[in-house]
């Protein structure tokens, strides 16, 4: 088992004719993901890597029976792209695009929920079930099918830990990047719930960072609902307050959202918190030993 994506995932790529869209569609196909359709308005009738391109998501979904969509369109058009996918009945939408205005995301998030679709991101690296489907921009070869579920607010930090898990021989069931924006479609809790219910996942790794209170909420959830061992790393112990650390969501404001607060909450919930990314794998290995 795994969560969210697997070999039955039929993926649609919105923005497939763009530079990033074309590159990553190729990478995903190479990894073995079933990329069944692409969408770029005005480019319908063409094809990219042999994948048919359509003008609209509704047409693409109808013709291809896609059950997931990944979005590579520029920030200005990305909210509309998410809404188009949700309205076309796509149940799983992954938005890679960064720099989407947060007030737009509040509306988009509410609409996607009302359609009972799941949005991952925006500003995220996507998700992967090693050996079955790579739906995102992560380098596929660092992953290895295994025992640990991973959820992260960061991109490259995820790769770092994925690699350490692979090296440690633990591997991953699925790895999900939920994105670094203040308002996103899927929270730590949403993914923790899925991993807790997934038979194959034996332990869970959570990678957080400064800003907001998602990690604190996750800690409360873990204490209450998660029976599997959890290890974590929180980036930003050295970050100064009031400064946005790259991600729109990574900012300590008014004394809230510090790494210390998050680490304390997680440890209180029984989570093993590492002092550097690679050490998460060591902690997890011990927890699963």
């Amino acid at each position, binding site marked *: 088992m795994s969560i969210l994506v697997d070999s039955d995932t039929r993926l649609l790529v919105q923005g497939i004719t763009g530079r*990033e869209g074309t590159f990553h569609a190729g990478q995903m196909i190479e990894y073995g993901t079933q990329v069944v359709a692409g969408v770029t308005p005005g480019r319908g009738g063409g094809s990219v890597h042999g994948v048919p391109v359509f003008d609209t998501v509704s047409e693409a979904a109808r013709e291809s029976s896609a059950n997931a969509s990944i979005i590579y369109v520029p*920030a*200005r058009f990305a909210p509309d792209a998410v809404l188009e996918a949700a309205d076309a009945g796509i149940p799983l939408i992954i938005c890679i695009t*960064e*720099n*989407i*205005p*947060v*007030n737009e995301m*509040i*509306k988009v*998030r*509410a*609409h996607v929920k009302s359609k009972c679709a799941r949005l991952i991101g925006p500003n995220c*690296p996507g998700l992967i079930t090693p050996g079955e489907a790579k739906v995102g*921009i*992560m*380098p596929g070869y*660092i992953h290895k099918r295994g025992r640990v579920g991973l959820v*992260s*607010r*960061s*991109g*490259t*930090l*995820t*790769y*770092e830990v994925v690699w350490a898990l692979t090296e440690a021989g633990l591997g991953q069931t699925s790895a999900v990047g939920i994105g*670094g924006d*203040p*308002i996103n479609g899927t929270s730590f809790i949403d993914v923790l719930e899925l991993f807790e219910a997934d038979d194959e996942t034996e332990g869970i790794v959570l*990678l957080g*960072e*400064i*800003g*907001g*209170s*998602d990690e604190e*909420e996750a800690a409360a959830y873990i204490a209450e609902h998660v029976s599997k061992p959890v290890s974590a*790393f929180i*980036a*930003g*112990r*050295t*970050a*100064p307050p*009031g*400064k*946005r*650390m*790259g*991600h*729109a*969501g*990574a900012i300590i404001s008014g*004394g809230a959202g510090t790494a210390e607060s998050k680490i304390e909450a997680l440890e209180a919930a029984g989570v093993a918190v590492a*002092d*550097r*990314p*690679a050490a998460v794998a060591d902690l997890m290995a011990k927890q699963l030993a």
Partner: protein
Amino acid sequence: MNIHEYQAAELMAQQGIPTNAGVVATTAAAAGNAFDQLAGASGLVAVKAQVHTGGRGKAGGIKLARSSVETSEAASAILGMDISGHTVGKVLVAPGVDIAREYYLGVILDRAARGLTIMASAEGGVEIEEVARVSPEKIVRVTADPLLGLLDYQIREVAFGLKIEPQLMSGFSNILRALYDTFVANGASLAEINPLILTSDDHWLALDSKMTIDDNVLPYRPDLEELRDLDIENATELRAKANGISFVKLDGNIGCVVNGAGLAMATMDAIKLFGGEPANFLDVGGGATADQVALALELVLEDDAVEAILVNIFGGITRADLVAEGFVEARERVEVDVPVVIRLVGTNQAEGREILANAGISTVESMAEAAQAAVAAASGH
């Protein structure tokens, strides 16, 4: 992006909020000259430091003055003052007012509620975080509907929560509606009035205004981008931003060039963990080109305190070969006079390492190894 009090007040006034409009001055003389036109019946003005930080009152950044000379003296004292690391370059001279009551009224991006939350309190004039800590029951909170926005009944809930009297309801409601509209119309992530005062003759007035604009809105709103105070922002940070690089200046001696915000923070943390001090946060961003990596090195080297550089790249959307090309190119363009530790893994890592090897540059494998090597290099320098 933070904007100044006087700028926030202007945006609020555009939506119909009664604000205490004054004159912005960059010299003591100009401030003194403003006294006569502003003092009016009260015979009083407030001289207020315009800085992007709180606590300016306690720091002496707000003074009252009863004459042109006093105003000029107050401005002279405040201009150039350092408030929590921010140097004051401008003061706002505003009319004195007769305060009967003070409220706090704010619209904030509420991450936990996944929406915009109105916060209000009858304890105005003090920081809302302080009220939240000491007496949270004194704060009225209402979260606007994500799709319908702030509804009329929600405005009434806030007003009833603050026990606003019937004859004052309509004025208060108009201000809250306008504050919400100001927030939405300008893509804000914070808009607050503190204090919102009631004068002794029952008029509402926004005495101090504060706003933060969502950086992601700025590309579509050149009018808001123009509100940026270039005098007080870090030049290196601005240059980085203009080129799609996230850069934050810190106080250490080990420069960082990393891809990804989380990894960049983790890299800083690792430097600290192994006994060093990071000189900066730097994320070259997704899909970094050779030019960008070269620029990143230049930005880091602008800081004289830097005694070693740690390049930490884990390729995903960023291809390691491009990073390697960028690094080689940067070395040709920029004089790199400090030791550099490079760690390069991920997409196209073999090609990237080959490019570096061909240029005579070696790489390390793990992040811990890289951090330790950088700390050692900086200490040995």
